[in-house]
């Protein structure tokens, strides 16, 4: 069953976000790996919305649903300027230490750990959807 809830657009909301995800994990009997994945992907997308879409203080909506052999996550940021996180440059994970720079790693992890990832911008709403299959 789809669950959804809105969270204040602040890093301080993360604890409530994780509690929300854990309730879903418990309800569906998902394992620790699934919980780790859900926490990570949700945190990375959520914190990007908090840090980079600063023109709006509207809550961020998180929806999660058990579908077929996996889980679908959807995060929606409201009243934001056009923004395409999918267009961000890939992080060079083979770069030596001295060429490592902050930024972009979270999106790289999300891309790496997700089976399907999509961005949709419409009517000043940015919707990020992620789908992950679990064995």
């Amino acid at each position, binding site marked *: 069953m789809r669950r959804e809830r809105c969270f204040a657009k602040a890093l301080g909301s993360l604890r409530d976000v994780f509690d929300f995800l854990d309730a879903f994990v418990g309800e569906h009997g998902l394992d620790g790996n699934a919980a780790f994945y859900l926490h990570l992907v949700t945190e990375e997308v959520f914190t990007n919305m908090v840090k980079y879409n600063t023109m709006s203080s509207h809550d961020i909506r998180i929806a999660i649903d058990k579908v077929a052999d996996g889980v679908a996550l959807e995060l929606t940021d409201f009243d934001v300027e056009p923004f395409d996180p999918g267009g961000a440059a890939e992080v060079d994970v083979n770069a030596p230490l001295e060429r490592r720079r902050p930024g972009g*790693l979270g999106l790289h992890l999300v891309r790496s750990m997700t089976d399907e990832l999509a961005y949709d911008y419409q009517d000043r709403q940015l919707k990020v959807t992620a789908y992950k299959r679990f064995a």
Partner: protein
Amino acid sequence: MMLEIERTAPDHVALSGRFDASQEAKAREAFDQIADSCTLDLAELAYVSSAGLGLLVALQLRLAKKGGSVTLANASPQVRELLSLAGLDQVFTVL
């Protein structure tokens, strides 16, 4: 489960709990106290995100400028996978 950072020996620091973006300020303050090569024991670290990984890299960069380094020890399989996906197993010694 908040992030806890405890120096357990002069060159040994234990991290436990959850290292998410809300813990950045706390971690930065603790890492600023590390001046020489050290081992970070991650045995009790349940979770880390890119925010935490970024601070680990920043610490490694700062120590490397003085000829030092950070060793990561006892990471969980999930944290090891993240280190690998981020290519950080190439910039840290991972035990």
